[in-house]
């Protein structure tokens, strides 16, 4: 459904993506792993047109992601940003219901608020946070509000940039289950970035490892442990020794 073909992106002299090829089938959960700073977030943002690749193409349903009606295109997506990216001028529920309060998916205010509170509950937040401002929440709570916002309009394609970073193990478990549920029940296509191997096993249908600007390995999660790829093995074991240099 989402296909990267030979995608390149540099920032000044820094070559981040150097020919990424990847296919994410409809209704599947793809998890992208890879060292810090390898360009995972850049890859996600490229699909949404937030970053324009230098060369190569990204297609969604066979159509070039940069062409056609932007609004209709973006309405199909939900995105959790790595830093949460909550609007600090709006309350928590207004953040979550942002899409439901304006534009093509607009609902009555009461209904939007109800949906927001329901989504907050799903990410483990009680209704009393609804009227707080994002700056009044802890980092992990902000992350979960971001998650609630990403899923609020029930998009068909959802990107999660490190959904469990900064959460306690139990809350991570809740979020992993939620992501799994969204893929299985809503039939959504998900692309998740994570460093947490427990999450990978809980969420993924398929795994792709980004290293040195290319997809080093990709395959079903069941084959991850027997891949024979020294890069992937080092990443899974978290060893400082191996082909991936610890100092980059």
């Amino acid at each position: 459904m989402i296909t990267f073909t030979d995608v390149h992106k540099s920032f000044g002299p820094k070559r981040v993506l150097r020919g990424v090829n990847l296919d994410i089938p409809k209704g599947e959960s793809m998890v992208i792993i890879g060292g810090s700073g390898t360009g995972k977030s850049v890859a996600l943002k490229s699909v949404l047109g937030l970053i324009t690749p230098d060369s190569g193409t990204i297609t969604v349903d066979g159509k070039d992601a940069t062409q056609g009606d932007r609004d209709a295109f973006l309405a199909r997506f939900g995105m959790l940003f790595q830093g949460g990216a909550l609007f600090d001028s709006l309350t928590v529920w207004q953040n979550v219901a942002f899409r439901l309060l304006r534009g093509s998916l607009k609902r009555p205010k009461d209904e939007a608020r109800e949906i927001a509170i329901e989504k907050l509950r799903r990410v483990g937040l009680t209704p009393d946070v609804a009227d707080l401002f994002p700056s009044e929440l802890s980092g992990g709570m902000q992350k979960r509000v971001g998650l609630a916002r990403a899923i609020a309009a029930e998009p068909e394609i959802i990107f999660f940039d490190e959904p469990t970073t900064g959460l306690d193990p139990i809350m991570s478990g809740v979020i992993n289950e939620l992501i799994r549920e969204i893929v299985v029940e809503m039939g959504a296509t998900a692309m998740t970035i994570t460093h947490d191997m427990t999450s990978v096993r809980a969420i993924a249908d398929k795994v792709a490892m980004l290293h040195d600007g290319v997809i080093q390995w990709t395959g079903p999660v069941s084959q991850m442990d027997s891949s024979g790829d020294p890069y992937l093995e080092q990443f899974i074991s978290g060893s400082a020794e191996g082909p991936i240099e610890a100092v980059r």
Partner: protein
Amino acid sequence: MTLTAPLAALGRATLGVLATIGQVTLFALSAITHIFRPPFYAREFAVALLNIGWLSLPVVGLTAIFTGGALALQIYDGGSRFSAEAVVPQIVAIGMVRELGPVLVGLMVAARVTSSIAAEIATMKVTEQIDALTTLSTHPMKYLTAPRLLAAVLVVPVLVGIGDIIGIYGGFLVGTQQLGFNPSTYVRNTVDFLQQSDIVSSLIKGAVFGGIAATMGCYYGMNSGRGAQGVGRATKASVQAAAVLILAANFLLTSLFFTS
């Protein structure tokens, strides 16, 4: 090589300035078109009106009253050198309405509003809130820039009008309390002397300066670099650019209105 180095640097700087002018112009045009194309974000517009207009009133009032007062003292002193003290009301009125009112309000708005718009939008940019807006199918130009620009163009003329009046009142206070003018004569001289074109020019300047202030804040905010340093640089650059452009635009408008 050493001889041409300064020339090369000058050339680069000039090209840089020209490129920025081009970008700002395109940005402003795009912002204007977004004002006229739906959707219109009424809540954002109302907040901008409040921030730019209402909350600027105290600083505008204080600036104007002190300036009007000082102006009256200067004109009295200068005028007395050739026994023309009596022109205080007329010159205070014309000076405030034609020049000082719009310019001072413009500069105050640049200091207060441009900086806060730039810092807010730049912070949104570095914390990925602008990206988040886009992914939520909301155009940042429409949601952030258009309401602020429209609010500034509408409300800064009002501020200028208020500044003009308070400035004249400052002159009146000094004139009547300290310089011995008769209050009713002072008021009559002011009112009789001012022409409609003076007031209209004042308000038009206000609208232009408001537009410059909001556009610069939004432009530098949207193009902010990364991190806290990026926000700081964007804020500084926006206020500098707004202040210089306001003064330059003032010169152009004055030559347009008052030289024939």
